[in-house]
């Protein structure tokens, strides 16, 4: 019985970290532009798919790096093409645009890669569940996932807290007019926020791909879950997003023991609705104004 | 009984005490102004009286009934009407339609009556339209009835907003900086207008920076500074109060 418990626990941890990373991606763009980027999930999908396409020709690490860079470029392109030149658009308009964008990206992916399910090869070892934690058997890929995501969270937090560019982004997010009056290149900083979110999403997509596979339409589900995490964490600090991600991951994982697995995705939606109805500002945003 | 009784209201926003233990009264048929430097808490006070903000402490009574903490539409139903500092006219509606919305509370037809086009709904609409036009005539802007409200000139928009506020036949009219952006002649016209409004039996409470308007028409003046009441007396007396002069009037002079 306890092996099952650990099985769920590790599954929840793995997925939770992925959701946390996507959620942080939401946070970054939201804090920089006030827009919820519904296409966030597609970055993860693109990362996985591009890497799969590249891995035939180049070694795995290069493929992953290439995929991440390509997705970052796409993120920058999106910002430049769609967000930069709009002057004072309404929230409604932006929401609808990002939804449309996510659809377009998804359909483009369908066109390029078809409906096949793909996966990257395992980073180390192979599919055999060779690792054993608490009696639960799993593949070492789980450690890769948790480790990579954790590293990303740490790096991003450090970026915002200690590097000049990070501080500039925080200033820009806090008050764009004042920031530009101080001479900060606000437009580029916004682009940077997209690039950062895209890159993080892509890497997460790559690292989890061996376990969950990648298909042209995985983006939507990830977006909903990532958004849930972002809201749960109060659209603010990364740490809150991680906490929220882990919570959601565990809820989802353990729900399999109670409900038919067909409803697993509904769990995150139910959580989302619950938060939105009860406490839309999230549970962790109470004291902290903005500290990524 | 005074129409409006504000007792000990306070409001804090995060680290700022916007309004601190302010009390005052407005008698029926009076024109009273709230003045003070920027940041004195005037708009917050207004928002509390009109229901947009709930006071942390204290009470606000209209004709004896408590209205503090009630949402804006309930406060409006009690006979309070207001204008906004930055003109909040309804976009994509004509001036007349804007004023007709002001009279929303004087009719009752809802969804069903509206959809089916029932006779009662039509009758009520006619009445509302007639009254709205009357108010616009009273303010001299009847000619603007069919114009797109948000594309009118600034002074005209102010007039439409005032018409909208008057359309519901309120007991208390709250004017938030009605003279902002008006030149001297327009301000004088506004002053005449407000006194005519009072002559109809409506009590007026206004926030203003323009001292000529305030001294011209106001019976009493409440002076706020940093959220606290500095003075509350007849206009002449306030003008001569040395504390007030130092804090506020000193920089401008009348």
């Amino acid at each position, binding site marked *: 019985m306890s092996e099952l418990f650990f099985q769920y626990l590790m599954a929840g941890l793995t997925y939770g970290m992925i959701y946390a990373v996507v959620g942080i991606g939401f946070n970054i763009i939201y804090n920089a532009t006030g827009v919820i980027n519904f296409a966030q999930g597609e970055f993860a999908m693109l990362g996985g798919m591009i890497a799969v396409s590249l891995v035939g020709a180049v070694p795995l690490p290069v493929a992953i790096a290439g995929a991440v860079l390509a997705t970052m470029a796409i993120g920058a392109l999106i910002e430049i093409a769609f967000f930069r030149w709009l002057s004072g658009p309404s929230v409604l308009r932006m929401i609808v645009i990002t939804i*449309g964008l996510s659809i377009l990206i998804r359909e483009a992916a369908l066109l390029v890669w078809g409906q096949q399910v793909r996966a990257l090869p395992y980073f180390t070892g192979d599919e055999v569940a060779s690792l054993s934690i608490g009696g639960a058997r799993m593949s070492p890929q789980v450690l890769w996932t948790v480790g990579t995501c954790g590293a990303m969270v740490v790096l991003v937090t450090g970026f915002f807290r200690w590097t000049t560019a990070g501080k500039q982004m925080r200033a820009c997010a806090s008050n764009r007019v004042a920031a530009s009056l101080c001479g900060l290149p606000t437009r580029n900083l916004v682009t940077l926020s997209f690039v950062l979110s895209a890159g993080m999403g892509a890497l997460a997509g790559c690292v989890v791909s061996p376990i969950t596979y990648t298909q042209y339409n995985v983006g939507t589900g990830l977006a909903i879950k990532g958004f849930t995490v972002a809201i749960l964490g109060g659209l603010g600090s990364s740490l809150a997003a991680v906490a929220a991600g882990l919570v959601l991951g565990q809820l989802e994982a353990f729900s399999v023991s109670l409900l038919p697995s067909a409803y697993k995705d509904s769990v995150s939606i139910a959580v989302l609705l619950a938060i939105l109805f009860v406490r839309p500002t999230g549970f962790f945003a109470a004291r902290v104004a903005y500290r990524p | 009984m005074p129409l409006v009784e504000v007792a000990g209201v306070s409001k804090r926003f995060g680290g700022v005490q916007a309004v601190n233990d302010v009390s005052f009264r407005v008698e029926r048929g009076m024109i009273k102004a709230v003045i003070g430097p920027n940041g004195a808490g005037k708009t917050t006070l207004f928002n509390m009286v009109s229901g947009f903000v709930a006071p942390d402490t204290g009470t606000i009574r209209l004709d004896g009934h408590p209205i503090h903490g009630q949402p804006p539409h309930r406060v409006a139903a009690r006979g309070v009407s207001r204008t906004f500092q930055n003109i909040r006219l309804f976009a994509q509606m004509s001036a007349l339609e804007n004023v007709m919305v002001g009279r929303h509370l004087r009719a009752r037809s809802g969804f069903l009556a509206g959809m089916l086009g029932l006779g009662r709904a039509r009758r009520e609409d006619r009445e509302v339209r007639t009254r709205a036009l009357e108010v616009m005539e009273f303010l001299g802007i009847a000619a603007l009835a069919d114009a797109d409200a948000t594309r009118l000139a600034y002074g005209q928009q102010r007039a439409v907003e005032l018409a909208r506020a008057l359309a519901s036949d309120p007991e208390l009219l709250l004017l938030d900086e009605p003279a902002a952006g008006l030149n001297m002649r327009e301000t004088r016209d506004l002053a005449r207008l407000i006194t005519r409004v009072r002559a109809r039996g409506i009590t007026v409470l206004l926030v203003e920076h323009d001292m000529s308007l305030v001294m011209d028409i106001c019976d009493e003046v409440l002076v706020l500074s940093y959220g606290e009441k500095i003075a509350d007396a007849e206009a002449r007396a306030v003008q001569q109060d040395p504390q007030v002069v130092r804090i506020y009037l000193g920089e401008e002079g009348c």
Partner: protein
Amino acid sequence: MAVAVAAQLLAVYSGKAFLLTQLTMSAYYTLAVIALSLLMGHAGQISLGHAGFFAVGGYTSAVLTTLDLSPRRNEEIVGVLARVGVLVERAELYGGQVLVVHPWVAFLCAVALSVTLAFAVGIPVMKLKGHYLAMATLGVGTIIFSVALGTTWLGAADGISGVPAFPLLRNLGVAGGASERVANYYVAFGLLALGMLLLLNLVQSRTGRALRAIHGAEDAASAMGIDVASLKLRTFVLSAALAAVAGVFLTHLNGGIGPSEASIMKSVKYVAIVAVGGMGSLWGTLGTSLALSFFSLRGWFGAFDDAVFGLILVAVMLFAPDGVLTLLPARAAASRSRRTRAAPAPEGDGGYELPVALAGQRPGEEGR
């Protein structure tokens, strides 16, 4: 409105009978879409799950009119209902007799269920703003879709079929048979015209003004005595009810319904159509919906159906957010000036929320 009727007659006599079926279907989708237009354009609320209500209506009616109760004929309640006329016998496709709910009763149940759901969902959802609202409605739509897809007694991925005709008059019923094509065409457009009439009346009425006021300046509307939350909720419920009605009739027309009617893509398509037609314009939405639904059903967009609507959505939102008609030069200037006149937030913010402004937006001009 007379114009619309005349246009129909022309269409009928142009000959190709099979086109009629698609036009009829378009009419029903359009009924749902104009209801959404009321919600989005006049009340200013986005709903990304509207197809869900359409599906709730359709599925309820489908289930009730196909669920055979004859095995339970001996139960007290079944007997009572049958005598009262709620349950009727009808011949099934393969010759047997089934005991099912009368289509009219099923219709009422479908609308009632949709309304109840809309209230239950609407009360918490209407308090949300902007992206929160969008996500909440998206979530609701997704749940409805998941339930439809995952529940066996709702037919799972295959949906429900064998739904009977919907009897209207003695010889007239809503069904998909070829012989009834013309009649059904008129029924559908008749219903659509009725819906348009009701909504147009509403928009001109006191309630309609109040809705437009909310859309124009929510705080000022509240100050005029309009109970904003209540009105938004009731508009949401009304638009859900209309979508359900459309769902019921389309289901009977097609003889069945499947989970794709509840999919998020469907909801997004509805939103795209409303956006193109102009959010404040019922007529614009009507025309756009009929056109786009028809093209989509005819298969003009082929496998790229979803992509086309996605593209339309993005393009419209980028270049003509007030609807395609604003691309005409005269209206374009009006629409642009209206957008830049957004008033800045009043000082001393506190008890009410203005729409979230984009960081860096230039403060509105004082309109001198």
